[in-house]
Each structure stands twice: as C-alpha cells, then as structure tokens.
C-alpha cells in the first residue's frame, strides 16, 4: 500500500516536470492559432530557445540572462514566421516546418562551432540554473498524512518555471477571454474581415499574437536546457512541440482543457518511463514505442468521437488579404 502510494507520488511528480514545456508550448499555440496563424513551428522555437538559453547562460553565468536570450531567440523565429505568412501571405504550415528544420540544423551547427562537443553545450553548474524551490513549513507539513506528502513531493520542490507555466495558463485564459485584446484576437482568428472593418489592423493583431507565442515558447525552451536540464543536447525538444500541438487541439484551443490534456500526456510519458522493462500481468512487457505513441493515438481516437468535434478557429491558415 505504502509502496504503491510512493509510486503514484513519484509518477505525479514527474508528470508535472514533463508537462511543463508542453503547457508553455500549448499556450503559445493557443495564442497563435486563435489569431488564425497555424503554429507548427512550436517545436523549432522551443529547440532554438533551449540552445540559446544554455549558450547564453554558459557564456554569462546568469540564468536570468539566458532566459531573456531564449525569449528573444524564440520571438525572432516568430517574426520570421510572421514575415513569411502574415506580411507575405505564405503557407503557414510550410513556414512552420521550415522553422523546425532550421532550428534543428542551426542548433547543432552552432553548437559544434562554439563548443566542439558534438552539438551539446557544456554542463551548467547548479547556480547557473533555475533550481527547485522548497516551500516554507515543509517539515511540519510532511507529517500530515497523504495531503502533506502530496504537497511536499508533488506541489513543492520544482523550479520557478514550473510554477510560471501554471500561471501562463491562467494568463492565457484571462487575456483571451476577459480582455479587449483577447476579444479582438479571437475575432481575428475567426473572421479577420470583421476586425479590419472595425478599424483594427489585422496584421498588427496577428503579429502581437505570434510574439506572445514566441515568448511562451522561449520559456519552454529555457525550461528544457537551464531549469529541468543542465545544458543543451541535440534534438532535446524531441517532438514535445508536436505533442503540445496535439494537446491544444485535444483541449479545443481552450487554455484550461488544454492544461489537462498536457498533464494527461505528461502522465502517459511518465508512466511509459516507469513501465520500461516492467512485466505487467496478462500483458507482459510494454514496448517503449507504444507508450510514446499513446498521446498521438489518444488524440486521434478521442477527437474521432469521444469528446465531440474540435472546431478550429474559422480563419486559421488563411492569409488575410483585403482585395480578393
């Protein structure tokens, strides 16, 4: 009993760690796609900013500086995306893919050129990272059965970015649904003509949205390399951007359901790691690949009928043009 409780606690703990970059990226996706811009480049922006965060932190010794550098890098990638598909009305999927390919190649090339470590950046010392924060009264609380332990092991003891990701969800929800900016952002993704004729610049709205998305992706990247990890490793985003995209669709472009989708996908991955090499009764050993595929399979299956139709923003993927 006690042992299985420990297992659950540690599963939940790693769920949160795994879900954090997903949450940042999925919120970024919501900002971008709610404004009508498909953001398949979440993956690339995260990878790029992970690299830049690690490099800048290594060079300056300050994780804060690394974090801002990461955000800057990710926003630049967003601007490239915007220039291609907002200003020049290019295909959003192609542009996003290009960013992913660019990020994948650029990080390795620059990594080798700068550090000659096969694409990795040097390991960061613990004072160069965002380290876990322990909450107050931990010792007293740990005596409270179940709840106390939950608090100590699962809620407390993460780095600042983990808590920031939760804040990002509420930030996203609040901005999108409760502010004037959010109303216009949703309108621009549904029917840009309505926004344009209301005297609001569609182009400006969309650039603002993708810049916010860039910032959030920057946080995700920084989390990977200077908070959760201690340096950059090649391809370290490992498809998380795509999973975040799936989580966003799963959550129907709504922040709160998307948060839960991210947690679910995080949990599945944590479970996959946990079950590696473990013999299950009746089933036997589950191949790792099955667990890795689960988020995608789940998204397809659930979207196909269990949670109702996910309706994408009406004008998504369509460049806005007045004359035609």
């Amino acid at each position, binding site marked *: 009993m006690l042992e299985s409780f420990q297992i659950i606690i540690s599963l939940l703990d790693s769920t949160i760690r795994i879900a954090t970059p997903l949450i940042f990226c999925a919120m970024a996706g919501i900002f971008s796609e709610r404004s009508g811009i498909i953001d398949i480049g979440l993956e690339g922006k995260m990878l790029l900013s992970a690299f830049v965060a690690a490099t800048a932190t290594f060079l300056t010794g300050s994780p804060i500086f690394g974090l801002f550098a990461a955000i800057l890098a990710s926003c630049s990638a967003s601007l490239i995306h915007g220039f291609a598909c907002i200003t020049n009305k290019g295909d959003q999927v192609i542009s996003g893919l290009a960013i992913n390919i660019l990020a994948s190649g650029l990080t390795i090339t620059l990594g080798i050129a700068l550090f000659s470590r096969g694409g990795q950046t040097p390991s960061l010392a613990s004072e160069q990272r965002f380290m876990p924060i322990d909450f107050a009264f931990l010792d007293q609380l740990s005596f409270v059965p179940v709840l106390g332990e939950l608090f100590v092991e699962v809620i407390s003891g993460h780095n600042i970015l983990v808590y920031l990701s939760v804040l990002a969800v509420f930030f996203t929800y609040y901005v999108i*649904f*409760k*502010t*004037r*900016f*959010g*109303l*216009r952002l*949703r*309108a621009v993704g*549904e*029917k840009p*003509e*309505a*926004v*344009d*004729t*209301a*005297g*609001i*610049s569609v182009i400006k709205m969309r650039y603002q949205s993708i810049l916010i998305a860039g910032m959030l992706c920057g946080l995700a990247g920084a989390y990977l390399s200077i908070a959760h990890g201690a340096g950059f490793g090649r391809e370290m985003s490992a498809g998380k951007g795509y999973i975040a995209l799936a989580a966003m669709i799963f959550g129907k472009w709504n922040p709160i359901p998307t948060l839960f989708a991210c947690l679910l996908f995080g949990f599945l991955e944590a479970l996959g790691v946990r079950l590696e090499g473990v013999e299950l009764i009746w089933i036997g050993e589950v191949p790792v690949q099955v667990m890795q595929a689960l988020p995608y399979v789940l998204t397809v299956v659930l979207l196909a009928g269990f949670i109702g139709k996910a309706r994408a923003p*009406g004008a998504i993927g369509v460049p806005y043009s*007045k*004359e035609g």
Partner: protein
Amino acid sequence: MKNIENKGGNEAIASLPPSNKSAIELKNITKKFGYVVANSDVNLKVRTGTIHGIVGENGAGKSTLMNILFGLYKPDNGMIFLNGQAVDVNSPEKSIALGIGMVHQHFMLVPTFTVLENAMLGNEGSMLLKSGEKFVLERLKGLSNNYGLNVNFEAIISDTPVGMQQRVEILKALNRGAKILILDEPTGVLTPQETIGLFDILRSLREQGVTIILITHKLKEIMSITDTVSVMRGGKVVADFSTAETSPEELAENMVGRKVLLSIKKPTLKVGKPVLEVKNVSHESKDGVFVLKNISFDLKEGEILGIAGVAGNGQSELLDILSGIETLQRGQITINDKTILPHQDWNSKKAREFGIAHVPEDRHKRGLVLPFFNYENSILGYHGNEDYSNGLLMDKRKILNFVDDLVENFDVRPRSSSISSGKLSGGNQQKLVLAREIESSPNILLVGQPTRGVDIGAIERIYEDLMKLKSRGTAILLVSVELDEIMSLSDRIIVMNQGTIVGETSSSNATELEIGKMMSGLEQV
C-alpha cells in the same frame, strides 16, 4: 480608452440641419486593380440627412467606390470631402473616426461571438471586457430602442436569422458614432417583411439626421426609399437623378446603356401531363436535422414551377436530391413514369439519363470548373456523350464545333471557346451553364438562382432562353430567393419554409405580401 463618439468631427456633422450641404463629396475618384479600372473619375455628392441610392450592374464599381469611402481601398487618384472639408480616409479606423459606418453585403460578423461581442468589437469601452460590457450594453440598448433595432444581445450570431444579423451590423456602426451609413446590397438576404422593417429603420435614421448611401441592383427599392440616386456603369457615374423625377425604366436604361425590357412575355401554353412527381420526400442532414419534411408536388410539361423561400429552407437540398447529387432517403420520385425509391442507386449521371438537366445554384462550386476553358466546361457532365469522343479520346474538333455554335447561339461573351471560364463575367458564366444544360434537350430543367450575381442585360437573355425552353414543352423547376423573379416567370408557385411546403398559389393571383408571409413561416395557406 477610445471613445469615438466624442470626437469633434462628428459633433460638427450632427449639428448640421438637413440642408443642401453635402455630407459627402467624392471628386475624380479613380481606382485600378492591376489593369482593371474599377472606378474611373467618379464624382458623387450626397446631401446631409438624405438617402442616396447607387445602382449599377455587377462590376459597375459600386462596391469598390464605397470601400474607398470606407477606407478599405486606397484610391489611385481623387479627393474625398466630408462636410466640405477634404479628408484622407486611408483606413477603416480613420473613416470610423470620421463618422462613417458600413454594412457590407457579406456581413462582417464573427459567427461564434454573441451579438453583444460583435456589436462592441472595435469599440469595447475598456481594456477589460467586463467593465466595458456594462457601459456599451447600455448605449447599445439605447440605440436599439431609439431606432427600432430589435436584437437579442446574448444570442450567438450563427444562431440568429439574417435579418437580426443585419440589425447587429447597423448597431455596430451606430455604436461607433456613425453619422453616415453605407449599406451594400442590404436586402439580398431578406424576406419582403424584413425588407420593410429595414426600410422603416432607415427612415427613422434619416429623420434623426443620418446620411445613408444605399447600394442595390433592385430598382423597386431605389424608387421606394431613396431621395436621390446615381447610376454607375463601367466604373463611372453615368447619371444622377432625384428619385421623384425618374422611373425604373430610365434607371435600367442608364444601367445597361440601352433600352431593356423589364417585363417578361410569357408564352401562353397549355401544360401537358406530369413529368415529375415528388411524393413525401424527407431528408435528414448529417447533423440529424430534417431539412426536408414530406415534400410532395408535381411538375408538368411546359410548366414553370417556382419555389419561393428564404435561402436555407430546404430548397438547395431538394435540388440536390432531384439532380442526383444526394441520395433519396425517404419518399419517392417519379420521372417520366420511372420511379426512384429510397436508397436506390441514384446519381447525377442517372438523372441526366432520365432527362433531367440542372443549372446549379452555385455556378462556381458546381456549375463550372473555373480554370477550365469554355469548351471544356460546355461539355462538363456530358463528356461521355459519343458526339464528343472518338473511341477512347475526346474529339477536340467536334467539341470546338459544338461550342462555337453554343457561345454564338446563347450570346456568351467574349465569343471564345478557348478562354478560361473564370475570366467571364458572372452573367456570361451563367449563360454558359444554362446553354450547356439546355443543349442537352432535357425533359425537365432544374434551375437554382438563375440570376444571382448576373447583370441586367444577361438576366433579360436568360429569361428569354427559359421561356423558349418552356414553349418547347420542357418542364422547369425554378428555385430562387428573388421573389420578383419567381412571380414573373412561374405558372405556379410553392413556398418553402423550414423544409416543408407551406403554401401553393398560382402566380396570377399571388401578391408579394402573401407570399412573403408564407416565406417567413407566419402564415400557412
């Protein structure tokens, strides 16, 4: 916080008494799109507090001109004066600030938003929605009472009828302090009753000093509501009239540039035996809604049966089933004594074999492949015909011979078989589709919206062709949202509302108001 209403410019407009002062003056406006000249040297004056009509055929440049006034397009040349002052309207934001509001032909509403959210978009009153909402709602309610703009603020736009959507558009403009209101083809989607309601609103706006520009191709509306009217043709204003001193005939003549016959001579013809019998046909859409409920009627040789109704009341689905695009789910259809039962193999190829030809409602989606050449489009659907092939391959010479005659006989301009159909005007595209279907010598012709987006000259021609076909004994089923068209062409009219036939009448003793009532589902006959 931006509160447009309190800007000085509007106050100046509001304080002007309705007089001979012009609210709007356009001077020498020219606008080109690539090589196409949409507006050429246009001059226009509209007096404050009046309703000014702009008529013209499709492509005459009416919408372009208004989009320039609203700041959506930048003119290549020319000046805009508001209340005698030169202004630079370079964006909708600017024009809104200057007190110009526009209700576009295709509504600029976000379908997933509520009425309130749509009405406040762009003038939300506050950074945060909640605090702005209260304030804006109060102002909107005031406007709504003031002008009889009845709306339900909580409803989601996609669930509301088009009439209400239009009122939301007007509210939206007024909420931003519009003193000049441009309406682009506002009645196209309305029932006659809704049109009357709209005109009442426009009159009360005029009484309170709002200047209104009404763009339309319906001459009757121009006559009934405007004070002055300008006619546009080929990108130019060709004539200005005071409405009281002109007539529909004169306007039509100026629109087309030659005399037009507005009335239709119906051949007197005895109708023959029924060729199409529809019995208890019902149809369930993918969403599980019954879009057709127990539809029964028959259609006889040499008869034109008109189906009136507001768009979206099952007419399209009925056409789809009869033309073989949709399978028959319930009921039965008898065509020339051959009966089709539910879930029987029924497709458009079969329909053609049974003698049914179909001019679809949406010629861009279903009537033509726009990038195809005229000669390809003219045999679309009949490409399997032996006349056009020689064994395995298409016989291009035979096709070209056929098409050269076709464009000649049906006056498709330009008379070329090798121009892509997308380059033709709406009217000529429609003539091409109609020509193709008539040339197949059908027993039954299904026609959907024959004159949608078609200019007057072409309309005249299309009506003529339909009448010729009728006198040959072909049975014609005519679906149209233009009530005038239904009334002047049909021998008999059935009215559809929410998937049922709510009334039937012969065209000679029908009045527009009666049919309008049936269309709105208020009255069952």
